[in-house]
């Protein structure tokens, strides 16, 4: 690779790459993000390469591996370009047929096609699948065109042209002004105006001129993984955004703080940084502009609190990841006491888009207060699990039913949890709520980083609240009393309630405690921690009351309040459950209904798993 010394050289390189590529050539694409890999996409990709070379077609047909396409439910996915014929849940055994029938003879293999769960209709082309057509994939769409290990793929899409535009056609103030006009708000959860942060950091005094720019990739909210997908699938969009931001702020030192649970994102980012450096798109004198900026990677150690800005910076300094009070903001005194600007992965990925297409174009998308798109990870009890990028202002109903395909197994929707452990649960009555930063807060939840966990009738809301409080007691750093002790007490009360020991007045006590923790905690972890409890009390008070007054778990989840019995009508007496029961609690003769001994039963659920006749009743 030759170092690029000007914007013209970048343009020439892009043109050269494009001239070598024929958009009409057949290309077989496998997505190998974490979800795909976990389902065997690597084997599929290898089978494709092997089959093509066995048939002597290696030189006439292209193959490509990309990051995640967001439709995790149907992985591993193979798409044949240029028509974009999509095959789902492909195994290596399917590949010879895919190549010989579909790639060579142009015939569609019916059984591997995606079928719409609501209509049962088979869909041939990727671009016609409702999951995709109803989204606005400004950030995610390029994932399908890019091999993240090849910077040339990003350059072929005009990558880094926006950086050249910023460096050579704009002064830093203009870049800042454009982001301000676009009203970009932080995608990590807070929704703070990005340009205002940049401006404060740029204007903060620094004795030696050192300022830091950090990308927060410590995506700690359970059930949220859009940042993983962006870093894995399109790392250069994040890098380009960071360089443009650093130029606007006047920073020469950057960090990406990646959580260690994302080994593939880390690997792809390391490769991307190396390749950007080799081309001179990172490092000293970027594109011959005289601007220097480089990025280092720092790995997290599995602490949720390190997503908080001051804790993250402490961890970057090699210290314990504890937050500090923010009387002085990190934009003034952050990493090593220097002005520091921290934005999350998705925020950075928005920056090239805004500078390239302009604030006027960008601010047409979204609502009055919240502009652009937001990526949500739609997970839990939902048909189409995956990453969904939609314009701000879309309703929850559209996301869950039109894109998500509704609830599996004909079950009833109960709630959607947004905002991770800092957020809350939103009930069915609010499904027509337009999703933006303000409305979610009004509903007692928050945007957070974009996790949307769907709960159905079989989900116990008290158990969900307990889950988050337990999570937070483990993740509380312990520095301030309200968060450390208050959450522990909340967990005690919730545990009592779920174990049938709940008392009259517990709900009120939870509300009071929650209020105090919100008011008095040191950092955002504590001040938002009671949200899951308070929002479930607000919307599902009857479930709490059923646990406390009737000692009953309506969803059949809380172990102490449920019993496993066998439906005599349905049980054919196959003895499978007898063999699997670890407690030897089930008895019965062959071909006669079995019985569970309640004294011995530990409610492990093994019998329910193994029963083919749905004869195990949980009540």
């Amino acid at each position: 690779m030759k170092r690029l010394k000007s914007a013209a050289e970048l343009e020439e390189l892009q043109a050269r790459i494009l001239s070598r590529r024929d958009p009409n050539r057949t290309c077989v694409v496998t997505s190998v993000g974490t979800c795909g890999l976990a389902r065997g996409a690597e084997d599929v990709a290898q089978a494709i390469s092997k089959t093509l070379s066995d048939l002597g077609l290696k030189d006439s047909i292209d193959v490509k591996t990309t990051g995640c396409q967001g439709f995790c439910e149907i992985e591993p996915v193979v798409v044949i370009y240029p028509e974009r014929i999509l095959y789902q849940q492909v195994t290596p055994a399917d590949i010879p047929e895919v190549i010989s029938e579909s790639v060579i003879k142009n015939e569609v293999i019916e059984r591997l096609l995606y079928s719409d769960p609501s209509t049962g209709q088979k869909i041939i082309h990727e671009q016609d699948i409702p999951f995709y057509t109803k989204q606005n994939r400004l950030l995610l769409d390029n994932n399908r065109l890019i091999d993240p290990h090849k910077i040339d793929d990003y350059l072929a899409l005009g990558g880094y042209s926006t950086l050249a535009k910023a460096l050579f056609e704009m002064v830093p103030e203009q870049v800042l002004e454009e982001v301000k006009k676009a009203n970009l708000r932080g995608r990590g959860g807070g929704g703070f105006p990005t340009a205002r942060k940049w401006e404060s950091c740029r204007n903060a005094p620094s004795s030696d001129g050192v300022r830091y720019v950090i990308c927060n990739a410590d995506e700690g909210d359970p059930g949220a993984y859009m940042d993983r997908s962006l870093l894995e699938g399109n790392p250069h969009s994040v890098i380009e955004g960071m360089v443009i931001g650093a130029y606007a702020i006047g920073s020469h030192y950057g960090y990406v703080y990646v959580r260690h649970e994302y080994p593939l994102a880390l690997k792809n980012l390391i490769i991307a940084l190396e390749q950007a450096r080799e081309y001179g798109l990172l490092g000293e004198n970027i594109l011959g502009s005289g601007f220097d900026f480089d990025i280092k990677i720092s790995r997290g150690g599995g602490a949720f609190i390190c997503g908080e800005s001051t804790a993250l910076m402490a961890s970057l300094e090699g210290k314990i990841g504890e937050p500090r009070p923010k009387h002085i903001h990190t934009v003034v005194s952050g990493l090593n006491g220097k002005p520091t600007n921290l934005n999350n992965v998705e925020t950075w990925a928005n920056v090239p888009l805004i500078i390239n297409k302009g604030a006027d174009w960008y601010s047409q998308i979204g609502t009055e207060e919240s502009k652009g798109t937001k990526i949500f990870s739609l997970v839990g009890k939902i048909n189409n699990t995956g990453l969904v990028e939609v314009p701000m202002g879309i309703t929850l109903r559209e996301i869950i039913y039109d894109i998500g395909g509704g609830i599996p197994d004909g079950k009833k929707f109960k709630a959607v949890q947004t905002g991770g452990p800092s957020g809350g649960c939103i009930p069915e009555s609010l499904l027509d709520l337009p999703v933006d930063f303000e409305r979610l807060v009004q509903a007692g939840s928050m945007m957070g980083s974009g996790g949307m966990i769907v709960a159905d009738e079989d989900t116990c809301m008290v158990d969900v609240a307990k889950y988050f409080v337990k999570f937070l007691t483990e993740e509380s750093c312990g520095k301030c009393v309200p968060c450390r002790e208050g959450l522990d007490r909340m967990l005690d009360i919730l545990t009592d309630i779920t174990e049938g020991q709940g008392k009259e007045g517990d709900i009120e006590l939870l509300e009071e405690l929650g209020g105090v923790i919100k008011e008095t905690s040191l950092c955002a972890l504590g001040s938002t921690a009671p949200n899951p409890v308070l929002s479930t009390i607000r919307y599902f008070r009857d479930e709490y009351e059923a646990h406390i007054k009737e000692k009953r778990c309506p969803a059949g989840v809380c172990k102490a309040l449920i019993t496993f019995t066998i439906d005599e009508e349905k049980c054919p007496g196959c003895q499978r459950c007898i063999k699997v029961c670890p407690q030897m609690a089930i008895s019965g003769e062959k071909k006669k209904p079995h019985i569970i001994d309640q004294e011995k039963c530990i409610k492990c659920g093994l019998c329910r798993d193994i029963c083919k006749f749905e004869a195990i009743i949980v009540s």
Partner: protein
Amino acid sequence: MNHNYEKVATIVTKYGGNRDSLVSILQDIQAEYHYLPEDALRLVAQQLDLQLIQVYGVATFFKAFSLKPRGEHIVTVCLGTACHVRRAPAVLDEIERQLGIEPGETTEDMQFTLETVNCLGACALGPIVVVDGKYYGQMSPGKVKAILNRYRKAPKARKHEEIEVSR
């Protein structure tokens, strides 16, 4: 020092001896030795010119680190929200029962260490159990025994940090 920790120096040097890379350094050491041996921590403190307590503080603060030797196979149960609502706790209960240990513990024969993780970001596969870097999706209590048995017979552990393919 009764063990040869010469690789520690190499790892520290790889990060330019920077204190800001402490977490990364500890991670590489753990990948090498499967845990953080006390003597290795002493060496890191020495080389980064830090007090041992500072290194110890970081090593105990983060969930990713273990100060005790870990078993040959690392079993990690994802307890993210999506996995939770899909009955991950029942899966964890069954693994605890099968191995006779709780999260953070290692079996007496040093075969298995059980750990939990807050989210692996692969929610479509939930509930997920990872054994030595290999992902097992759509888990249920009933599948636990068979999967653990595969490893009971397996001779050597694979590196935890690698993502591997599962079927």
